């Protein structure tokens, strides 16, 4: 091929890319709309089923409220730059409001401030910015309460036994993980430095890392009989490690999230109980709040608890819980 043919090829390439883009807009539901209110949703990543459910909730609400939804996500958990860029572009596109689950609670704050200065309603979903009032409002699970529910459950279920606890946490300094851990400890009725907590490891909420962490914990303290896991993937990783030691019958695992895989694991008896949260509701309520703002100009503010429910098939006296039938009906993922 000659050198001159190159520009032609690249132009062809660009044409192809543009037609791809056009396809994208068709399936993304972004049909050209005269004067429709625009709402943006920015999740931490595209891949986690939790955020997929969130997107579904937003899409459903966008349809019923007759608003136009545009979505974006970070490339990886912790990717602040992509979220900032998406937020700027949405503001440029003229959105009325943006729903965002910040990848970095502090780093997103200046970008949120710029969007709000242009009159855009910014609602944090799931994860608050720091400080929390950097956004107009927060729609989220009460993570302390989620921890308390499984802490209190574990306390009741462990009655009469001497607890040896492993906590499989998220990562240092991440508020969601810290709050859940604090809630669990509080619900269990011990202090954070109680000697019954024999092992604490970070898992990043990842199944493989949860397994490694649990293996190390069992190495350190073979008589562990209660495991708190930051989420269900970490819990299932822990279960694999515990099963390999043949101890799955006498170690109890409690977790948080209420994803479908997790609730199924509760049903199968691999996890004793989990606190279920509702990402679909967070996003749906968020879209409705933006639609309401577009209508009457009133901005929603403050914190809205989107609810959390204890899911278990072996309810303990003194704890309120729903069974896995309810859990599977309302699960995400």
């Amino acid at each position, binding site marked *: 091929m000659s050198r001159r*043919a190159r520009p032609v090829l690249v*132009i062809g390439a660009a044409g192809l890319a543009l037609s791809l883009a056009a396809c994208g807009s068709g399936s993304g539901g972004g049909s050209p709309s005269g004067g429709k209110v625009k709402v943006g949703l920015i999740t931490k990543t595209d891949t986690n089923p939790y955020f997929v459910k969130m997107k579904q909730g937003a899409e459903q609400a966008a349809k019923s409220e007759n608003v136009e939804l545009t979505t974006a*996500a970070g490339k990886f958990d912790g990717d602040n730059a992509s979220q900032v860029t998406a937020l700027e572009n949405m503001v440029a596109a003229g959105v009325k409001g943006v729903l965002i689950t910040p990848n*970095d609670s502090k780093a997103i704050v200046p970008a949120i401030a710029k969007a709000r200065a242009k009159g855009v309603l910014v609602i944090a979903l799931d994860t608050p910015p720091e400080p929390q009032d950097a956004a107009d409002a927060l729609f989220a699970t009460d993570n302390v309460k989620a921890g308390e529910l499984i802490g209190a459950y574990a306390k009741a279920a462990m009655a009469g036994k001497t607890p040896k606890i492993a906590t499989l946490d998220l990562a240092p300094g991440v508020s969601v993980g810290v709050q859940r851990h604090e809630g669990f400890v509080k619900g269990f009725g011990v202090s954070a430095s109680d000697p019954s907590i024999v092992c604490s490891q970070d898992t990043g909420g990842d199944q493989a890392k949860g397994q490694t962490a649990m293996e190390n914990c069992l190495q350190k303290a073979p008589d562990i009989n209660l495991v708190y896991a930051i989420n269900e993937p970490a819990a299932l990783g822990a279960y694999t490690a515990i099963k390999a030691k043949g101890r799955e019958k006498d170690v109890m695992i409690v977790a948080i999230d209420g994803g479908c895989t997790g609730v199924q694991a509760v049903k199968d008896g691999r996890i004793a109980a989990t606190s279920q949260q509702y990402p679909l509701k967070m996003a749906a309520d968020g879209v409705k709040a933006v639609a309401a703002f577009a209508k009457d100009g009133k901005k929603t503010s403050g914190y809205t608890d989107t609810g959390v429910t204890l899911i278990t098939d072996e309810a303990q006296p003194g704890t309120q819980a729903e069974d896995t039938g309810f859990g599977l009906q309302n699960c995400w993922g």
Partner: protein
Amino acid sequence: MTASTSLTAVGKEPAVLRRFLTAPAAGPFAALVLASVFFSLATDQFLSGGNFSLILQQVMVVGTLAIGQTLIILTAGIDLSCGAVMAFGGILIAKLAVQGPLPPLLAIGLGILVCGVFGLVNGLLVRTVPLPPFIVTLGMLNVAFALTHIYSDEQTVTGLPEPLTALGRTFPLGRTDVTYGSLVTIALFLGFAYALSSTAWGRHVYALGNSAESARLSGIRVSRLTVGVYAVAGLVYGVAALLLVSRTGVGDPQAGQTDNLDSITAVVLGGTSLFGGRGTVLGTFVGVLIVGVFRNGLQLMGVSSVYQTLVTGVLVILAVTVDQLSRKGTR
């Protein structure tokens, strides 16, 4: 098409047009123009000074990284560590300035210098041991990543003093707000375009990329040149670190994790050959703008961000295909 027919075809056109069409960045430039025209027609908000300034502001960090990346790729090397080195530089600048013990301007200077040292070490390992650039910079990626997280203690640094955020501020140009930082990026692009095309150093870089052995035989001090290119690239990453800090207004230990690949994407889209010796930094500027324009335009159209990634992927593959085919053609 054979070489002779293409020559006659080219010969019919005016010299300026011919020169433009055969310049390495002509194809990417055409793609950029086409994409911009498309988005101008498809959305109401794309075609405005404010939006163009926004795109510039959004590409300034990766664009600056891509300048260093271009220099290294021109020597037939590659740098996987650029984003991680920048992240370390950024957290260093932010933390030194906020928590002491340095005044902000010294913190900035030291941060840029440290990035230069990372580049210098990369270059020394590549040239003197010698080791493949891919492996050296893969190692350095992990070293810089780990140092960032150790030094930052996983904490985002906030409350930055004025000199660190100055480049993130804007000034009015007509009715458009322009970010100071994007001017820094443009100045760097122009400076390196001049250095590569019009200085002995620049010609040596191309010679080295074409064939290190021939470059050595023609009297170029290859070792010094290579180490110098990596060190200069490191300093450029340091400037990117300052731009990053000023753009986001925080020191973010998670920053830059995909920026190594994003910078390579920009270089490739801009028509620079991964085999070295061919390409321009202005092409890279076009490449980084292509990514920025697609990201912005698709978002304005309401297209989900996965499609932006999809489009970028397709464009990269097409760009390297074009490079490979045209390489065959010219030999």
